[in-house]
């Protein structure tokens, strides 16, 4: 390091002295290195000493050459700025705010989007998905399809599926849920990351009966077993037995392949293919990862997978007619979704940065007219034009450097905020910080700002200085005014773009909050549990189910209790689908069969969640295990498949738990939203719990009081029935819905911040320009008023001038809004990116602000005594 610094500093030394100078420093460094015994400390010291070489080099250069007056300029600049502290502080504040935004944007791009994945040859790792032809979006893979893909493919050296799972870990004080994933052969090999200790699964361990092997995550191993390596080979108690620990997967290993099982996994177990799984082709719920063979390109792999899925479409038309495959790189999968947000964010940041530069330009010019005198004197004393430009630029550079230091601090604070309050499910957001790249970027940014904001004023002012005019020339005034008007146009245009983007997002957000979810969010508590282990068979499940419903129902404050298998808005909300046949309807043409989501609910569920009955009846105690089989359907189901038919009394056939079942539709309920507010409602068949008991139970209780404090009481009630029962997720329904809004709310918040800043800066810029114009017009105003013009005429004259400038800005901004509509598209919901109300509103707002910014200086000028104005100068 020290040697490199010396070599860099040597360039400052005049070439005549350079080689000897370099030898002297190198001689000292070599001697010091030879003497050093505490190496890290010596290294630090030498780096510090070497940095001093810059001062030495500067000193020599200053003495030897007359051309570089940088130090002088800096000294002069500092003196200037100290004398005009208000100006300096304002400028630094404006620049710091906008530069901080740019540094955050830069860090997000380099530390999140471009972050290297911790695996060898990471670009060869891909994820595979199902997709519907000509439709956007990717779906998880159905087990049957995965098994055929794996058997037929030749593009991948490893192709593995993962099936998220949770176990009850019984080795602690109390049973607890640990998050796991069952993986098929080749999963770890696809990532090619060595275990910390032990090994990964052998092919044999993926066979039924041999599959009681577990790989711990490093985090789990450190927290539960104090990083004890002797755990390898011992067994740990998980719900259905003892699992032998065979290896430890390193912390960097975070596959993040499934959205409904987010975050880190505690353990990995070997997946053995179940006998029924090859037949499942309708519901996709497996994540698939693969490593491309050497020499196979992504395109070749895509083409092969496309061919395989077309074969499967021919072989299994009822299920696979509309199923294709998609192969994307792991990186794209991890960060692809974040990209539009980052683009939007970067655009906003850039707009604010440009506005800030424009404002600083304006400030510099305004101050320049005050400094004209100084510059005239300096040029009269023999300062060259180049010298004056350099001097002015150095001043701006000083401001920009101070701003960049402040901006780095602000950016660090902002990124900490982003890490704690930003959307959690965005990968790596918690690792954001100011790194060396960000510091370098801040330096580059400061230079950019210096040139962008400082060059025009520097060149202009130095020209004014050289003209050395004792009296002001009106042409110079006019061209300066024109330039400053152009700057205001730019400011207004950029601010308008930000404001209309914000109003569009605000409208989307309001639309989203008004979406009919089909349920009532307030006053609902939710306990998700998996109760398969100690309740074997339908009868036992029914008993357990009835007991927990009754027992939670007895809690004071609880109104009604129900249960559901697929709970709306919960993280692990798996969409189980089935092919459905409407028995009383004409058979659909082949390949156009009906697919519907299947859900299991208890009678109390509808009242507890606040679902609305549209036709027929709800479920009740009549619909017991031995009663005729009945179902409810959602109105989305009716709209799609029973349009124009009375749904009540229709008989349908579907598969439940792998077996075909026939039922009669007895009622229609308003569809419930399941995943996000902006996703279409599910076409859903709701089966009574008594007729199809399941261990996947989410208990839903409507409460008369705030549900949050009741969660612990509800858990205690369940523990009275089974002290070993664990809870996979507990929450209030409001929390669950809110979670899906975080990203949007956050984006809205950020954009609102930027837009407000932009409006503020634009207003300040407009006000500044008009104030100068007015002061230059004072004589004219005085004459006019002396000749009898009413003050309202003067007011109109000035305000009009400002409004014309603003109007041009608004027009340019509107063009920008329409051009940039595409960037916003993915953030909007039920509102067009060219929505006239939002954009018109933004334009009106900008106009109003412009009018106010014009009115104040105009009013002041019009109210002035004409005699005073004429006496001026």
């Amino acid at each position, binding site marked *: 390091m020290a040697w490199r610094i010396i070599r860099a500093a040597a360039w400052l030394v005049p070439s005549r002295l350079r080689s000897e100078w370099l*030898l*002297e420093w*190198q*001689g*000292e460094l*070599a*001697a*010091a290195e*030879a003497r050093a015994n505490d190496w890290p400390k010596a290294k630090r010291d030498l780096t*510090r*000493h*070497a*940095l*001093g*070489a*810059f*001062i*030495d080099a500067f*000193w*020599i250069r200053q*003495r030897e050459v007359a051309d570089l007056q940088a130090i002088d300029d800096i000294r002069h600049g500092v003196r200037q700025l100290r004398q005009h502290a208000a100006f300096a502080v304002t400028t630094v504040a404006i620049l710091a705010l906008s530069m901080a935004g740019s540094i955050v944007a830069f860090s997000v791009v380099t530390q999140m989007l471009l972050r290297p994945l911790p695996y060898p040859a990471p670009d060869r790792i891909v994820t595979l998905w199902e997709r519907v032809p000509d439709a956007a979006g990717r779906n998880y893979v159905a087990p049957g399809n995965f098994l055929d893909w794996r058997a037929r493919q030749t593009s991948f050296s490893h192709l593995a599926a993962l099936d998220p799972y949770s176990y009850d870990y019984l080795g602690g004080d109390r049973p607890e849920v640990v998050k796991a994933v069952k993986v098929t052969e080749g999963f770890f090999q696809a990532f090619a990351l060595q275990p910390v200790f032990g090994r990964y699964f052998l092919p044999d361990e993926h066979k039924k009966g041999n599959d009681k092997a577990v790989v711990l995550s490093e985090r789990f191993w450190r927290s539960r077993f104090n990083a004890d390596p002797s755990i390898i080979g011992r067994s740990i108690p998980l719900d259905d037995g003892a699992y032998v620990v065979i290896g430890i997967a390193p912390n960097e290993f975070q596959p993040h392949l499934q959205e409904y099982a987010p975050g880190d996994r505690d353990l990995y177990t070997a997946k053995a293919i179940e006998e029924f799984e090859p037949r499942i082709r309708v519901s996709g719920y497996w994540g698939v990862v693969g490593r491309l063979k050497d020499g196979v390109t992504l395109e070749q792999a895509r083409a092969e997978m496309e061919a395989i899925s077309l074969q499967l479409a021919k072989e299994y038309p009822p299920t696979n007619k509309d199923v294709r495959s998609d192969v994307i790189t792991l990186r794209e999968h991890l960060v692809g979704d974040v990209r539009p947000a980052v683009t939007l964010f970067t655009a906003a940041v850039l707009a604010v940065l440009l506005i800030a530069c424009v404002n600083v330009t304006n400030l510099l010019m305004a101050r320049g007219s005050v400094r004209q005198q100084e510059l005239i004197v300096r040029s009269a004393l023999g300062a060259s034009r180049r010298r004056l430009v350099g001097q002015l630029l150095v001043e701006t550079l000083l401001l920009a450097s101070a701003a960049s230091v402040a901006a780095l601090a602000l950016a660090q604070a902002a990124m900490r905020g982003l890490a704690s309050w930003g959307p959690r499910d965005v990968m790596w957001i918690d690792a954001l910080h100011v790194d060396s790249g960000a510091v370098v970027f801040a330096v580059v940014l400061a230079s950019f700002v210096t040139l962008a904001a400082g060059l025009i004023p520097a060149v202009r002012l130095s020209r004014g200085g050289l003209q050395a005019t004792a009296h002001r020339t009106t042409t110079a005034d006019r061209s300066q005014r024109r330039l400053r008007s152009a700057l205001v146009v730019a400011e207004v245009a950029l601010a308008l773009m930000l404001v209309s983007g914000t109003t569009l997002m605000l409208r989307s957000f309001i639309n989203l909050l008004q979406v009919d979810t089909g349920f009532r969010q307030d006053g609902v508590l939710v306990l998700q549990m998996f109760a398969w282990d100690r309740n074997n068979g339908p009868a036992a499940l029914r008993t357990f189910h009835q007991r927990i419903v009754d027992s939670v129902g007895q809690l004071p404050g609880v109104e009604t209790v129900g249960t559901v298998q697929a709970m709306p808005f919960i993280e692990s909300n798996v969409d189980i689908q089935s092919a459905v046949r409407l028995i009383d309807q004409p058979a659909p043409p082949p390949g156009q069969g009906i697919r519907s989501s299947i859900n299991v609910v208890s009678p109390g569920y509808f009242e507890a969640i606040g679902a609305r009955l549209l036709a027929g009846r709800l479920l009740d105690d009549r619909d017991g295990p031995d009663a005729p089989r009945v179902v409810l359907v959602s109105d989305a189901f009716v709209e799609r498949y029973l349009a124009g038919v009375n749904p009540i009394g229709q008989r349908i056939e579907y598969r439940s738990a792998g077996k075909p079942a026939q039922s009669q539709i007895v009622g229609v309920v308003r569809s419930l939203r399941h995943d996000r507010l902006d996703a279409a409602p599910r076409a859903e068949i709701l089966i009574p719990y008594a007729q199809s008991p399941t261990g996947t139970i989410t208990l839903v209780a409507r409460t008369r009081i705030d549900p949050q404090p009741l969660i612990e009481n509800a858990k205690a009630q369940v523990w009275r029935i089974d002290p070993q029962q664990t809870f996979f997720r507990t929450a209030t329904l409001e929390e669950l819905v809110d979670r899906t809004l975080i990203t949007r709310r956050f984006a809205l918040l950020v954009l609102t911040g930027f837009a407000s800043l932009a409006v503020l800066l634009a207003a300040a810029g407009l006000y500044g320009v008009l104030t100068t114009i007015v002061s230059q017009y004072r004589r004219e105003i005085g004459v006019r008023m002396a000749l009898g013009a009413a003050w309202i005429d003067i007011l109109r004259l000035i305000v009009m001038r400002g409004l014309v400038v603003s109007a041009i800005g608004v027009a340019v901004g509107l063009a920008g809004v329409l051009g940039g509509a595409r960037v916003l598209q993915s953030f909007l919901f039920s509102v067009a990116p060219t929505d006239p109300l939002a954009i018109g509103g933004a334009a009106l707002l900008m106009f109003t602000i412009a009018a106010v910014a014009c009115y104040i200086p105009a009013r002041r000028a019009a109210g002035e005594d004409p005699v005073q104005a004429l006496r001026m100068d």
Partner: protein
Amino acid sequence: MRLTYPTALVLQALLDGHHHGFDIMDATGLPSGTVYPILRRLDAEGCVRSRWEKEGVARREQRPPRRYYELTSGGKTIAIDARERTQAMAEAGKRLLRPVESEG
């Protein structure tokens, strides 16, 4: 000549037998960005003269030769004068300067 406090310290160090830039830094505790310009100024004013260390010494220690600074007779006078003239400064200097022998 202009005798600032750091300049006086550098003169002391030279008087006490420190002859290389980095040694003077260690002895005075001044940063390199202060010591070097002072040496250059003293050189220009004729208070010190500099030459390259003898080839043999450097070769024996397998490193490039170092620059060797020593006081001229004029410089020595100024240095002694400075020490005597400002007793307080000398006191401060003594406290700051470690004798060269103890370095080994």
